[in-house]
């Protein structure tokens, strides 16, 4: 490790932390320390000392870049490693893991930047590390935690990412590179757009793809009936945001169109299992599916495509997923119990009524989509 360079610590060496984030740092200026709970990944990173991230660039296709890994540690190892205060610590471990992962950052004083797709995690980490300089960031990008077979043959640690944009709370301004440091209002607008115009339809595409037994998120976008639901959900959210948020409409329209293109990007090889993972988190009361549908209902319209998305999430099956008990719940518990006990919808409220009384019809409509499964 060069002593002349400043150090950046990235906790969470997955799609965002390893695939996209290093692209945003000024070249040759920082030493990179990667920390992850995946022991096997860390072993390979130590052994290889680098990884390749492939970015999809307009007109150029996939462009690969080799990133040197100065040090790599498991979370447990990093607890005891001597390390001077980095310039910034980034965390991209998934919202459910932030508190546990933040224990390794408690000893530092530098800013901690969270790329967690959930603004509530900032407060959790502030409490966990006992300081205030923990900030939210929005990587406006789709990154995959794997790569095409061809690229994996060149580098088994390869990943694919888009050429996105990185919005970071201006109070965390310390790292130089392709990073947009923005004020509170700009960050809030970006987050509303990301949560409802990206996260919502993106996970619906993944759940539909799962029902179609497909592998990548771009696959269902090639099935007209599935694409129609994703586009429909996008329009429902666009309408809700225009009616409730003070965000320029042309920005929202541009954002929505951009997202639909991204979901169809075949070069990303973004696995459905990544985007659809932890369905109970995606079905949280104030989250991207249930929260989004509640917003539309409050505005006076029934978001039929979001209801289909919620139903598709409830039907998600993946034995290796942390929330695979959703399949047990759907098989054995009555829909009314799933909605009121597991999703916490109040009995008798509009969304609960709509979902429980139309559950069979919604499943039938999804089965119609499933019949369009490509051979």
């Amino acid at each position: 490790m060069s002593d002349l360079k400043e150090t950046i610590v990235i906790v969470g060496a997955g799609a965002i932390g390893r695939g996209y984030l290093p692209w945003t740092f000024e070249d040759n200026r920082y030493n990179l320390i990667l920390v992850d709970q995946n022991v096997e990944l860390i072993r390979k990173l130590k052994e290889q000392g680098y990884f390749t991230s492939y970015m999809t660039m307009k007109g150029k296709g996939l462009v690969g870049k080799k990133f040197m890994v100065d040090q790599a540690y498991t979370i447990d190892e990093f607890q005891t490693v001597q390390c001077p205060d980095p310039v910034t610590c980034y965390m991209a471990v998934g919202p459910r893991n932030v508190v546990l992962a933040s224990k390794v950052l408690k000893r530092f004083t530098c800013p901690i930047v969270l790329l967690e797709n959930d603004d509530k995690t900032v407060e959790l980490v502030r409490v966990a590390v006992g300081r205030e300089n923990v900030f939210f960031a929005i990587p406006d990008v789709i990154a995959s935690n794997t790569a095409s077979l061809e690229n994996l043959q060149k580098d088994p640690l390869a990943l694919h990412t888009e050429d996105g944009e990185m919005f970071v709370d201006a109070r965390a301004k310390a790292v130089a590179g392709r990073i947009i440091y923005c004020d509170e209002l700009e960050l809030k607008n970006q987050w509303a757009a990301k949560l409802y115009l990206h996260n919502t339809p993106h996970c619906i595409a993944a759940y539909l793809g799962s029902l179609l037994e497909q592998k990548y998120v771009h696959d269902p976008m090639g099935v007209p009936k599935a694409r129609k639901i994703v586009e429909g959900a996008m329009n429902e959210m666009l309408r809700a945001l225009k009616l409730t948020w003070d965000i320029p409409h042309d920005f929202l329209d541009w954002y929505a169109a951009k997202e639909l293109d991204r979901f169809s990007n075949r070069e990303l090889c973004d696995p459905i299992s990544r985007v659809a993972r932890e369905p109970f988190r995606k079905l949280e009361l104030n989250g991207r599916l249930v929260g989004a549908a509640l917003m539309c209902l409050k505005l006076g319209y029934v978001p039929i495509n979001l209801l289909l998305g919620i139903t598709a999430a409830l039907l998600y099956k993946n034995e290796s997923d942390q929330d695979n008990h959703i399949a047990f719940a759907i098989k054995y518990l009555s829909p009314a119990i799933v909605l009121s006990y597991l999703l916490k919808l109040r009995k008798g409220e509009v969304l609960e009524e709509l979902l429980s009384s139309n559950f069979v019809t919604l499943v039938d409509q999804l089965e119609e989509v499933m019949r369009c499964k490509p051979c």
Partner: protein
Amino acid sequence: MLDSVHGRCAQAVSNALIFFESFSGKNMTFSEKETARDVVSEADLAIQTVMLRGLHESGWPVISEEKENNFEILRNAEICWVLDPIDGTANYSENIPFYGISLGALKAGEFFAGAFGMPATKELFYTINQDIAYLNEVRLKVLPKTLRASLVAASFSSPSTARGVEREREFLLFGSLNDRSKGALRLGSASGNICYTAAGRFGLSYGLNNKIWDVAGPLAIAKAAGCQVVTSPIDPSGRISFVVGHPAIIEEVRSEFQPFIGSI
């Protein structure tokens, strides 16, 4: 087929929770059974009727609180359902939300599967296999705790099964645990006590000479959540004593429970 025991168990309680909603807002009559704290309502009986119908379809025998039982089958049957249509009816009669529908399955005498649904708090505890249990959507995994940092929950025997000195020993144990912990509680539902222990809210729960239907399902849930479950043998009248908690906390109280449960 055994996997579906967990499914059937959760399904039966889930359906009963929906059925229970039909009693919401209705005036209920409560009748005293053996003692003032042993009460039964129309809801208990109606839930039992509906659940027995479904459980009988499985072909396995059922032990249930509000019917005549042959406790021999607990030892002999391959699978035996054990039902308490409402555990904590006294609480229910006073609008205290700590009660629920409790169902367990014993396999060759072992606590195998369980589900406990609390309609007032919208909490459903259930096993999906012998090693995994959930509270609603959240996995239950018990964490180490000391007695000093824990609440303790107790379920006492009925006055008819422990009298005189024996009764006093039970109260002495309760007092001792109360003074060495965050406090000992007697909440009126053994099922609720055990499930809340599985969820880490109580560090320890115990019951002395409880009826098997009060505990069968929840003990399976506690085991699946990683609790150490120590029980006495089930006696011929279907009574059992138990202590449940993280192994570390059971270690702290081991000697005190030996006179009640036997060697731990």
